């Protein structure tokens, strides 16, 4: 953490060379397997989320939970407009990214920043690794629903 710059450089330069950290059980996703998935559809990002089915009308219960999570864990860096503060504003994010990519970015941030080209472009732009905010897949889905509402879906 204190060597953020070094880490960032290492991340950028040694894309395939992850440090030999001892594995904590259930801690690290299977990177190689995920990488294969990424090749099959790079626009979905890398991680556990392979396929998200979106429905309308929006799920109001999900939105309620999504707003609460946003205010606790996201709002400090992401505005709901297109203004970038620390991270990009959320306006139109659901139109630019696939839902799978958004949810993988939220739940699998370290691997995304190491392997996903789009995520790396954002890192170069913001110069800030998006923090792992300890979000479950369900949390990410709730936040996605709120993003859809923010982008004008009904």
């Amino acid at each position, binding site marked *: *953490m204190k060597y953020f710059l070094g880490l960032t450089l290492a991340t950028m330069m040694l894309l395939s060379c992850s440090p030999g950290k001892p594995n904590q059980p259930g801690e690290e996703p299977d990177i190689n397997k995920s990488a294969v998935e990424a090749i099959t559809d790079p626009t979905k990002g890398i991680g556990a989320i392979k396929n998200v089915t979106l429905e309308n009308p929006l799920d109001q219960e999900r939105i309620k939970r999504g707003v609460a999570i946003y205010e606790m864990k996201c709002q*400090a860096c992401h505005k709901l407009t297109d203004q970038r503060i620390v991270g990009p504003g959320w306006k139109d994010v659901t139109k630019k990214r696939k839902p799978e990519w958004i949810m993988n970015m939220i739940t699998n941030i370290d691997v995304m920043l190491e392997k996903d080209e789009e995520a790396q472009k954002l890192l170069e732009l913001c110069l800030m690794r998006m923090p792992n905010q300890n979000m479950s897949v369900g949390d990410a889905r709730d936040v996605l629903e709120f993003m859809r509402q923010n982008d004008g879906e009904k």
Partner: protein
Amino acid sequence: MKTKIIYRILSALVVLSSLVVWQGCKPKAPGSVTMGDAANKAFVPPGKYDEFYNIVSGGFNGQIGVYGIPSGRLFKILPVFSVFPESGYGYSEETKPMLNTSHGFVPWDDLHHIALSTTKGEHDGRWAFANANNTPRVARVSMKTFRTEEILEIPNSGGNHSSPFITENTEYLVAGTRFSIPMGNKDVPISSYKENFKGSISFIKVNPSDGKMNIAFQLRTPGFNYDLSRAGKGPSHGWFFFSCYNTEQAYTLLEVNASQKDKDFIMAVNWKKAEEYIAQGKGRIEKAKYAHNVYDESTHSATSTMQQEVTVLDVMEFPDIVYFIPCPKSPHGCDVDPSGEYIVGSGKLAAMMPVFSFTKIQKAIANKDYEGDFSGIPVIKYESALHGEVKKPGLGPLHTEFDDKGNAYTSMFVSSEIVKWNVKTLEVLDRVPTYYSIGHLSVPGGPTAKPHGKYVIAYNKITKDRYLPTGPELTQSAQIYDISGDKMQLILDFPTTGEPHYAEAIPASMVSPNSLKIYKLEENKHPYAAIGEGQAKVVRKGNEVHVSMTAIRSHLTPDNIEGVRMGDVVYFHLTNLEQDWDVPHGFAVKGNAGNAEILVMPGETQTLKWTPDEVGVIPFYCTDFCSALHQEMSGYIRVSPAGSNTPLKFSTGVIEDSNAGK
């Protein structure tokens, strides 16, 4: 430090009085021990983990050092009885109550012994307990958070040395007074020692579910010095053993006057019996005043409560609780082997070491095989309790640990060596020099019913030429020996902080999987937490200004605060909104006299109190390099003169007209 001086005086005395030329008395020069494959044995490759945690008392620094074995790498300094600038322990409003005592706030104490919690006599990886030697207290540290969670003061104690040794299921830990004193703050002549001074041994009950401690009862014992202790286990479970010195009852120049008798005592306590008397209501309630401080993990805050009474049993009135066993010459260590049958007394001035048998002690008690009494308490005949003596083990035996193969390892302070011997046969098997003047030693699991073995670690009292000099004060020297073979082999020197006394080592696999990574924001119940930037605010309550501030890479919210006036007291309640491991944020504000900074873990809230002492615009910032934009993580607070009417306001990211707020 005091102990160190006593050790030095002792060593001088022993060397002077001993005319025997002792082999191994003079340590070999550094570097004369061949290393062989030592480097491989102590080497932990970069990115790999150590096999054991070593939980090491810091002695006069009042802290615990956490090291890896076999690499000797320092992982953490864990504050217990002392304030600690690195984490803000004792500086944040939440942690100040942890150091409260019946005497008020004590910022620095002397921490000597570690006891890791056990179940069925084996390590369970839940808690570490430690003692404050000076202002008598015991502490409980969570092995999940590596934080001090509870501190309990011990009343009627003149210094808490024989502590915090624990029973095999962590039912009790003990706190025996090192110095006897007149009970109840009596104003009496010092020379009335024999008449007025008493010992006091506290039995502290540990709640098995959450570890919370309370003083179950205190034993009043004869007036002399209580040094170290161990609980029985297996067959001797239900008993406690204490080494006692100064049975001469001297009150001045103890180095001479407390070294007169050939034998002092090991005190055997039948605590199950004492427990029965307490259950029968035979204890008497006495007034006392002592602090009980508890840290709450959900509010991230400590509270200090003053307790008012203790239950006391006078062992002179209940003669079947306590028995004395004669033990040669001012015993220090009093260690029980893994089977629970053998009790090793280390007479620091004796030329041999007695090993007592629990079975024989029980038989002697049954047969009333006594040589007399002391203050009405039976003294068992030495020979009747004795399993045997280790002959000529070395000079100045202090402490004994055990391995998993029936061997004992005793530290020899005066002859600077570790001596390995067989517990049953009492035969000396091996000896290695230490650099220099070893005090305590530790074998992983050494005090438990199931030692893990593999290494013995020496905590030396004298460093001298082992490291690059750093002026008059040197780092403390510890050493690791491989004990997997027949011969002990020195594999590593490593420096330690403070002055370690006792330490324990536990397999990493019993601790690391439970280690907490973050405090969950959803579970944060701190009354001033801002769980999300939308909750950040500044509230005035009279002359108190409470700032509920958030931190996330790389800004503080609010970062512009106005409307504070001279005479106000400002509380910065900082909530770290990060939910990722190892992303703390720090907070410092200029000119914080009498206070310091705070460091806030992910999801945690901590409070820094600040009393502005001058009018102006004062910067504050994050003190932990957290990101590429860490230097930008800062803000201003405006302090106006007393009585001015600058409106209270706060913001982040708001660009105002330069004339606003004039």
